[in-house]
């Protein structure tokens, strides 16, 4: 006996009755087997039921592709029940990626031309949901015919199907353009809002695709305005309205179509005043008005109206409205800054929202609203926000505050205070160049040196975990330690700081496991500088320095050894080398770096090669490969790094005005996405000088680390290598490393350059030695 197949509802009950996932799977697999058998047997009576069950199972996530062909059969059947389920199945199971979908084109064509209205409706619906480009092209004539059919039910569907077709195949615009005018005309006779809605959507779509359509439809804009106006001012029919706002969907459609035709919405003020905003529908229409005003070239008065509407939205208790208002105000803030400023207090209120998406929007808008007059008040609010905001917003908030402070700081002291506050509150989230900016700022504000160093010392004494803060503080203490110990500073209460305390603090930073290697470097250098600033004897410092001479970190070890050597062999020079850095100009030449390095370079070249500098000896090897030259390469160790300063300067090069005929850049090396470029500059005031900027870029998927570039030139030339901007190039086009070579060529000898690169890439260490060919002649003649 044939077991009658389960009804859909019974199957659903059975599946829901399953207690475990495994049980559910069992039930479904059993049923699917039945369904497959039934499909194979080709039972026409229950096919629709089987497919419905299959669709349910599909929604739960189980495979149902064997039902695709059954959809076709059901669509082709003459029973309405079959067609209904078949088309539903087609929409759910078939999409344009499956070749099978083209097979329903024929059925759809038949149904469109010969079917009864509900069937036509089904066909149009399916076509507009999953119709691919080929299907659309094939069926365009049928849909066009249906556009002008008397029955509104079919017509409205045909219109929207046409919209879909135009989206898929823009060339069909020409087919559907002519009927539009007639459709609009029909409405004014019959007042069928569904047709009007569809037509407006179609017109909008057409205007989006082709400027010719745009021109064509400009003429009908007055008609549309009239329709909108009647909707707003006259009564409404209950079936179309939502709580008193007549047909909001139609109003919204009307507005968006006017956006397309870029005309001034004269009715907007009317809409604004007449629309009841106590319900969401009214607000939706108002919002659309605002969007329209924003999108077209409105007069100033209208834009102010838009801003005011948004301001009102901001006061609404409904979160959604406020969110929408904040987003739109952000778009307007560039063009209508003063209008938006008036709503600043409300925006700042929104910062205190608990909803993360709202507070994010409020933050963006607040940052955009900061200007020179309100900067102090805004900063206070923003800083309060920074303390309490969720972690994912911290980084944005911190960098926003720093940027705004940079642009609008009323006084330097306020600026320093602000940055200090940000560093203490959210230090780990600030960008890398914040340290550089701050050191520069402090360096430039001579009158504030004492104040800064004191505040930084206090901050450091409290907390040594925030790395950027520690770095800046260490640098400051090193530079201005004497001011710190001098005692009184007018601006904060006097604090007697003992030499030993300062040294102890720096040592604590050095030893703390929370300190990054870069931070340690700062601390060590600061200690070294203090050796000249402090009056006591330097034994403690010397001790620390010599301990770090055997540190595992190579960078620290190198520095420590150099400093140690300074103490031991070059003590007479120590004071000169460690004196205060002159003012580092933002865009100016690297005066101090060069001055320093040339000084030490001169000294060091006299001495015998220092044994703890392995690079130097290998460089000498390099030179042997060139025409027997030796000894002229100078590789000054960077004593006072201030990497932030170096970064700014190198990136701002060329700092000399470019020569009249710029020498073309040269790409000298490429390996696995890592590239090295040379760019040449001959400053006109010094004909013997050649400046080469070496840029290392990385377009590969892996980071480049421990990048070191060394160079050698023939004996008759002099080469100076300056400190590189860093030794890491992040992957995928991250910030490149730049390094400046200065070459003095008084005799105009032919330039030859040999480069040695070492770096780590894709967990392998790479070493490349090569001579640069094709050096342009202009670089040395």
């Amino acid at each position: 006996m044939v077991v009658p197949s389960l009804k859909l509802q019974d199957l659903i009950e059975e599946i829901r009755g399953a207690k475990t996932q495994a049980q559910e799977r069992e039930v479904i697999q059993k049923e699917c087997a039945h369904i497959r058998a039934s499909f194979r047997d080709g039972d026409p009576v229950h096919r629709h039921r089987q497919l419905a069950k299959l669709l349910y199972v599909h929604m739960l996530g189980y495979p149902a592709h064997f039902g695709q062909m059954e959809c076709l059969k059901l669509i082709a059947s003459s029973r309405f029940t079959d067609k209904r389920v078949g088309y539903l199945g087609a929409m759910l199971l078939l999409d344009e990626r499956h070749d099978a979908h083209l097979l329903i084109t024929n059925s759809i064509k038949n149904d469109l031309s010969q079917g009864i209205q509900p069937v036509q409706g089904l066909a149009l619906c399916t076509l507009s949901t999953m119709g691919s480009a080929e299907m659309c092209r094939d069926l365009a004539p049928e849909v066009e015919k249906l556009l002008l059919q008397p029955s509104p039910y079919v017509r409205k569907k045909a219109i929207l199907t046409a919209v879909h077709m135009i989206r898929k195949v823009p060339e069909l615009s020409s087919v559907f353009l002519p009927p539009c005018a007639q459709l609009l005309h029909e409405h004014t006779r019959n007042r069928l809002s569904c047709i009007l809605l569809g037509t407006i959507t179609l017109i909008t779509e057409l205007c989006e695709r082709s400027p010719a359509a745009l021109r064509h439809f400009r003429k009908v804009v007055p008609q549309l305005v009239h329709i909108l106006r009647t909707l707003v001012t006259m009564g409404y029919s209950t079936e179309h309205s939502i709580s008193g706002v007549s047909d909001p969907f139609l109003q919204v459609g009307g507005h968006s179509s006017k956006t397309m035709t870029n005309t001034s919405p004269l009715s907007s003020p009317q809409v604004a005043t007449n629309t009841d905003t106590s319900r969401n529908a009214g607000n939706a229409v108002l919002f659309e008005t605002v969007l329209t005003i924003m999108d077209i070239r409105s007069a100033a008065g209208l834009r102010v109206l838009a801003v005011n509407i948004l301001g009102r939205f901001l006061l609404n208790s409904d979160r959604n409205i406020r969110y929408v208002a904040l987003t739109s105000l952000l778009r307007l803030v560039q063009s209508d800054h003063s209008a938006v400023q008036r709503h600043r207090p409300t925006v700042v209120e929104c910062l205190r929202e608990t909803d993360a998406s709202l507070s994010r929007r409020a933050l963006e808008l607040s940052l955009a609203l900061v200007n020179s007059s309100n900067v102090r008040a805004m900063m206070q609010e923003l800083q309060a926000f920074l303390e309490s905001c969720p972690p994912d917003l911290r980084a944005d908030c911190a960098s926003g505050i720093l940027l705004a402070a940079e642009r609008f700081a009323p006084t330097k002291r306020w600026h320093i205070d602000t940055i200090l506050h940000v560093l203490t509150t959210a230090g780990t989230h600030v960008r890398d160049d914040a340290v550089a900016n701050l050191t520069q700022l402090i360096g430039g504000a001579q009158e504030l040196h004492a104040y800064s160093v004191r505040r930084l010392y206090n901050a450091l004494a409290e907390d040594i975990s925030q790395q950027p803060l520690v770095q800046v503080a260490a640098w400051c203490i090193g530079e201005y330690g004497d001011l710190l110990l001098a005692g009184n500073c007018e601006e904060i209460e006097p604090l007697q700081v003992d030499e030993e305390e300062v040294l102890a603090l720096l040592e604590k930073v050095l030893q703390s496991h929370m300190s990054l290697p870069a931070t340690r470097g700062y601390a060590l250098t600061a200690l070294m500088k203090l050796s000249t600033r402090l009056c006591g004897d330097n034994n403690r410092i010397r001790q620390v320095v010599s301990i770090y001479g055997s540190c595992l970190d190579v960078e620290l070890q190198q520095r420590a050894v150099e400093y140690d050597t300074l103490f031991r062999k070059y003590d007479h020079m120590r004071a000169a080398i460690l004196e205060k850095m002159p003012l580092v100009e933002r865009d100016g030449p690297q005066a101090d770096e060069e001055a320093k390095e040339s000084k030490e370079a001169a000294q060091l070249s006299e001495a015998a090669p220092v044994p703890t500098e392995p690079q130097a000896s290998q460089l000498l090897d390099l030179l042997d490969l060139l025409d027997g030259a030796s000894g002229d390469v100078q590789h000054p160790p960077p004593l006072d790094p201030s990497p932030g300063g170096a970064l700014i300067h190198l990136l701002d090069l060329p700092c000399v005005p470019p020569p009249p005929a710029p020498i073309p850049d040269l790409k000298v090396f490429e390996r696995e996405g890592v590239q090295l470029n040379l760019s040449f500059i001959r400053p006109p005031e010094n004909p013997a000088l050649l400046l080469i900027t070496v840029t290392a870029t990385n377009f590969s998927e892996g980071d480049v680390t421990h990048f070191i570039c060394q160079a050698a030139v023939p004996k008759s030339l002099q080469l100076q290598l300056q400190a590189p901007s860093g030794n890491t190039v992040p992957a995928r086009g991250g910030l490149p490393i730049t390094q400046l070579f200065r070459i003095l060529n008084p005799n105009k000898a032919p330039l030859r350059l040999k480069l040695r690169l070492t770096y780590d890439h894709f967990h392998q260490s790479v070493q490349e030695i090569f001579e640069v060919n094709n050096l342009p002649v202009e670089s040395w003649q």
Partner: protein
Amino acid sequence: MQFMLLFSRQGKLRLQKWYVPLSDKEKKKITRELVQTVLARKPKMCSFLEWRDLKIVYKRYASLYFCCAIEDQDNELITLEIIHRYVELLDKYFGSVCELDIIFNFEKAYFILDEFLLGGEVQETSKKNVLKAIEQADLLQEDSKPRSTRLHSCVKS
């Protein structure tokens, strides 16, 4: 509109309507991620969120989440109205609709949606017209059934 999803508070999908062509795998992935994101939202948070490059509008009605993905230029507030109108239509059709109605009559839910939205756009703004169209189609379905089953289904409805 790009797609609409209905899912329960446990994350089970009750209806999915896609107006853009995507592979089955992509649909599953999007569904999974979006469901997680929406379910993680706290009750008082606003109904809009940004996800990938789409705007998502969602609203919770009893135990069901109605979630729509719209494009950048679409109006979020009107989408909320669209969701509400759809719920009203379901309510009128099933009479005080609850999640079980949608589970056991999912095809009807699809049919109603297809009378309200077409190709991602609103096709009919009058509630009456939508329900009338569904009624007529249901009647047709009745007429096309063979006699023996019709009596049985009369009892059921």
